[in-house]
Structure formats: C-alpha cells, structure tokens
C-alpha cells in the first residue's frame, strides 16, 4: 500500500538513473527502509547506513524477500564501459554486492600473476646507486609479456625457457662525457638465457657456448612461435640509474612469474579501485543568490544554474557523478544540510583499473573473475 508513496519520496530528487526505478525491485519495503538498504547517506559529520543488509530473511516479517536469487541477479546486473584505453579503463558495475566487487579488486591487485625481475646478478656496479637499491628498481620495472605463456618456478626448479626471462644491462659513461641516464631501453633481452658462467669465481661475463650458466635453456625463446615476432621487452623510458663519467653498470636480471601478494612488483595493476555512484539531491528549490553560492562552492562543478523565467534562477544537479563527497556544499551554512542531500548508491560501483602494461585492463578483469571462479571450484571439489 505504501508503494506509490515510496517511489515518490525516494525519487523526489529526480536523479538521472536510479536503481530504485527498476521495475524488478522487491516490492513492499517501507520507503525509509528501502532508502537505508540501497543508499549511504552522507551527513556533514559522518556517513550513515554504510552497511549492506546481507541476510536474505532480514525483512521476512514484512513479507519481503531480501535474498538475491540468481535469476534476479541475471536480470538486474549491468556493465557499462565508460573509458577504455590501452592501459586504463573505467566501467560501472551495477547491481552487484560489494563483497563480490571487492573480491575482484583484491584479486586484481594481489592474485593475478605477471613476470617481474626477481634475481639480479651484478658483475660490476661503480655507480652511486647501491646494488640492492638498483636491484629493487629493476624489480619494479613492468615486463610487457603475457604471463599466461610462462610457468611458475618453484624452489627446486632450474631456470629454463618456460619460466625465466633473462636481460642483460651493460652501460658505461665514458670519461669526459656528460652524465648518462640509463633507461630501461638499455635492457637487452637474452632469449638464449644467461651468459654468466656458473663456476667462474670472478663473475666476469664471457659469452661462451657450452659451459654451464645460471640458466639452462633448452632452446632459444626467440625460436618459440609465440615470441618469434614480438621480443619480450620491459616498459620503455623508465630511468634505472644515472651514471657519472667513468662509472659503469654490468649486470644480468632474471625475471620470473609471481603474484602481487608475494611482492607488489608482480601486481599487474598500478592500482584498481572502485567508488560508489554519488547521488546528489536538492531537497528544496535553491534559487538566486543561494543558487550562485552553491554553484561556486562545489569544486568539481556538480551544479548548474537554470533560468526559470522572470529573471529567476534555480540550481540544478548536472553532474552528480563528479561529486567527490568533499561536503563543501553542506558547509556553506547551517540550513544547507536540509537543502542538499548527498548519497551513494550501494550497488553501483565505478570501477577503475590501471594496468602496468603486461596485459590490457579488460583482459585483467576477465582473468580476475576467472580466478574467483577457480577458487569456488576448488572448494566444491574438495567438499565433494
């Protein structure tokens, strides 16, 4: 019976898209409960209703089923891509629980494998950068190769062409020359594996054919069809070190497959994050000077001014998505908390993925979802 009322009240602010408009919402929750269930209300002091109501029977006494049935999820769930470039992507996940969106985010950061430099064999380093700092910098360089083409290496494995990528770096700044900036472009891929001899005590690099080296490649990686026409390069144009006249660096770097939870250098994303969609609602008409004040206060220009004739002006919410929740609009004055209502929609996530370059962002997300599926499958098989 309260249904019509509910729609009216909650939509009073006429946001452009509201998930409350969807026809397939569970019917019959009183409007204030429906509001608590679907919105975070951001008051001046603190946000309220921040939790999600998970329990399926939470509203059983009102005859409302709160459980997300699979069919219902399938009807409601939407993805909207906002921006997609080679290494960065923004999209909306609509109609999904935060626990699942968060699982995707956590997997993106910590459980998707990439290749990264793990061992550095330093033959000579007379630069001002200490060996360990240099090795750490090398480790953080993104290697632009699909990690799915490689295997993990475990403690007792030998380094072979299926689990290791070897790079050589040999740069020197001649006496009398200007200072030299060493970029990642100087890293030379060694598709045949290490050139450093295993037994030699003085680790001079003398390229030889037969003797044992630090890796045991059975064939050249360059001869494998998957790398034949695209050499495995690190991300170009990253500064590794600066050399003064007379300084030299000679080293070999071995990259292996790993995951972000072991060390952040293996994380395939610069970062991945989400935020809930802001919903900004004017509870009463804001006119003339007040409207000017409101428009000028918002640092990200959420509000616009509309002429309503007779020389009168009215504030409108034009770009709620841009709202950063700085709450400046509530701080204009005491009565403003009654005029502006800042909310977040609990099941609408603006997801952003910044890839480091190994894989494009859309592939990263699909892989992350696959990993969550694998986790479920593992539990199912162990329980069966």
């Amino acid at each position, binding site marked *: 019976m309260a249904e019509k009322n509910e729609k009216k009240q909650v939509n009073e602010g006429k946001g452009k898209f509201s998930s409350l408009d969807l026809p397939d919402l569970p019917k019959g929750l009183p409007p204030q409960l429906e509001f608590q269930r679907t919105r975070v209300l951001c008051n001046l002091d603190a946000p309220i209703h921040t939790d999600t109501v*998970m329990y399926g029977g939470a509203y059983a006494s009102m005859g409302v089923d709160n459980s997300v*049935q699979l069919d219902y999820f399938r009807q409601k769930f939407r993805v909207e*891509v906002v921006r997609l470039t080679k290494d960065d992507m923004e999209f909306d996940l609509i109609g999904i629980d935060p626990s*699942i969106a968060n*699982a995707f985010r956590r997997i993106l950061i910590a459980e998707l494998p990439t290749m990264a430099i793990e061992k550095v064999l330093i033959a000579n380093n007379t630069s001002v950068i200490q060996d360990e700092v240099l090795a750490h910098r090398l480790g953080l360089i993104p290697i632009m190769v699909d990690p799915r083409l490689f295997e993990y290496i475990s403690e007792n494995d030998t380094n072979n062409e299926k689990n290791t990528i070897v790079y050589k770096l040999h740069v020197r700044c001649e006496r009398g020359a200007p200072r030299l900036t060493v970029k990642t472009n100087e890293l030379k891929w060694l598709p045949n594996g290490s050139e450093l001899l295993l037994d030699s005590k003085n680790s001079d690099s003398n390229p030889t054919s037969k003797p044992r080296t630090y890796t045991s490649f059975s064939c050249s990686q360059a001869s494998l069809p998957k790398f034949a026409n695209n050499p495995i390069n690190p991300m170009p144009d990253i500064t590794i070190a600066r050399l003064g006249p007379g300084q030299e660096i000679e080293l070999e770097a071995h990259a292996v497959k790993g995951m972000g939870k072991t060390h952040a250098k293996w994380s395939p994303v610069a970062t991945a994050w989400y935020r809930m969609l802001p919903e900004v609602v004017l509870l009463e008409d804001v006119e003339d000077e007040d409207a000017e004040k409101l428009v000028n206060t918002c640092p990200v220009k959420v509000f616009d001014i509309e002429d309503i004739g007779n020389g009168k002006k009215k504030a409108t919410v034009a770009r709620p998505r841009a709202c950063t929740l700085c709450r400046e609009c509530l701080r204009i004055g005491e009565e403003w908390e009654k005029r502006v209502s800042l909310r977040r929609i609990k099941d609408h996530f603006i997801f952003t993925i910044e890839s480091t370059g190994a894989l494009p962002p859309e592939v990263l997300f*699909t892989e992350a979802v696959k990993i969550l*599926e694998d986790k479920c499958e593992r*539990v199912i098989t162990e*329980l069966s």
Partner: protein
Amino acid sequence: MEHGAFGDQSNATFSLTEEDHTLANAVRFTLNQDPRVTFCGYSIPHPSDARVNIRVQTTGDPAREVLKDACQDLMLMCQHVRSTFDKAVADFKTSERGQAMNIDSEE
C-alpha cells in the same frame, strides 16, 4: 581443508587454506542469501597463517552441501559477470569507432 563438528551435520566449520577475505567474504554473502542458513560467518585466526575458517549453521540440511551450493552460486554469478563484461567491452569497442567519445550520454 578440514571439516569440524562431526555429530550434527547441520553445523560445521570449514577451514580453507591458502584463502583469505577475497573468497570468504564473497562466499559469506552468497551463504547469507540462502534461506537454509541460520548463521554464517568467517574468521582469519592469525594474519600470518594463510587460512580462513568459515562457520555455517543451517536449518537442518548438511552444512557441507549448503556451502557447496553457495560456491556454486558464486561461480555462476562470476560467469554471468564475465559474459556481461565481455559483451559490454565488445560493444564499447565497436561503438567507439563510430562516435568518438560520446559514451556517457547514453542512458
């Protein structure tokens, strides 16, 4: 993975190794959606131990089956997310070619 509580099948604690909040929190969500579940929750006994305990109490069905169903549900949800996402990306890629950058105006 071990399985605590042997007498009564409807209450059990499952101890998953090599898992953390990522899976446990998502499974807790799907478990809570299941009307057969009276209580469920998870804890990580020690942060340096890669292990999570998931407690499931049901109205009578074996907890093991209920947990299995929850994982199944989560997996199906993931598959749906993946197909929806792939479709959205494919649509975006084709649409963008036509109309440069006017994507957020479609509602």
